[in-house]
């Protein structure tokens, strides 16, 4: 994917986490220009993520608005998306927005029961936090609360 297309697609926001672009999320896998038009390849974060249809439509709109014709958006499942594909910039944006960014998946994507991940509070930066629920407001988040500043917050869980 060339820098020009990347720049255009950086304007397309995730409708459920509007500080992240589809580039930040790492869900745009490729964009191929041919004589006939352009094909963008995306992959879903979670299988049932309801935002994918909106994201596809917005990618189309954005490219059409920049003069591209015959825009197709293809969804592929393999290789499966991982939070490790989220950009460093994306993680910083999440934190500034009040959502704890995902830890590296090798550290924490474990199946052990009752294992609490040490998540830093995005508001006061304390590591003194606890999990309220391993599911949150969207499929990609878990609920935490800070034991120091007492604020509840979302954690974009590793996947």
């Amino acid at each position, binding site marked *: 994917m060339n820098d020009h297309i990347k720049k255009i697609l950086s304007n397309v926001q995730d409708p459920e986490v509007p500080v992240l672009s589809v580039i930040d999320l790492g869900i745009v896998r490729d964009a191929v220009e041919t004589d006939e038009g352009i094909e963008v390849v995306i992959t879903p974060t979670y299988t*049932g993520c309801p935002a994918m249809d909106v994201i596809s439509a917005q990618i189309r709109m954005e490219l059409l608005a920049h003069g591209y014709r015959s825009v197709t958006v293809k969804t592929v499942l393999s290789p499966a998306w991982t939070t490790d594909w989220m950009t460093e910039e994306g993680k910083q944006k999440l934190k500034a927005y009040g959502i704890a960014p995902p830890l590296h998946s090798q550290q924490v994507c474990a199946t*052990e029961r009752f294992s609490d991940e040490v998540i830093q509070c995005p508001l006061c930066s304390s590591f003194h936090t606890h999990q309220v629920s391993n599911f*949150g407001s969207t*499929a990609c988040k878990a*609920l935490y609360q800070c034991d120091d500043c007492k604020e509840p917050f979302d954690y974009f869980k590793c996947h």
Partner: protein
Amino acid sequence: MNMNVDYIMHLADSALILGHRNSEWCGHGPVLEQDIAITNISLDLIGQARNFYQYAAGLHNDGSTEDSLAYLRDVREFRNLLLVEQPNGDWAHTILRQFFISNFQYELYRWLAAQEDEQLAAICNKALKEVTYHLRWSSEWVIRLGDGTEESKQRMLSAIDDLWTFTGELFTRAPFEPVDPAIFSQNYQQRITEIFTEARLPIPTGVYFQQGGKTGLHSEHLGFILAEMQFMQRAYPGSAW
């Protein structure tokens, strides 16, 4: 190499019906966080069902779509497991049903993710990440309820009594299955022993099992589920959002 389309439909139907069952908790969960949890699991399962149905629709190649497959087939055409259509009951029943299924799906999807059917492998590899999370969540709840209060323990015992008889079907091979699911039973049983021991629950020993879901012979519950789930498409054919 593609697998038998009836097998893909069986995977799709089981994911859809369990997703629908779990979605019945929406707004009725015991606490807000767990209401959100069970409906998130529902969303994952319905998403997996969509992927299986889309794949099956392509293989059918007769104009069927994910929607027609989900909304326009009747009870006898559904190939889901009997376990997933059982009523939600109380929280213990819902948790135990999820634990049995996630435990099984974890083994099954790991196997399918390594097979030569590329599209099915991709769907299962993706779903596996979600199933792993469901397995962890439901295991924790089995332990929490089994080793909780006297009442929560009684409710778990009652759920085991009601649901165990539907678990044998998981390991009974249907003609469309690419592998004898009995190969998954050792890891499945081992996990039950591990979790139930930690939960201070007795390991079920019943040997009479209900069969029929894989061949379209369902319990009375599936008709009621479909009546509700398919109502809009039956009443207003072709309606769209």
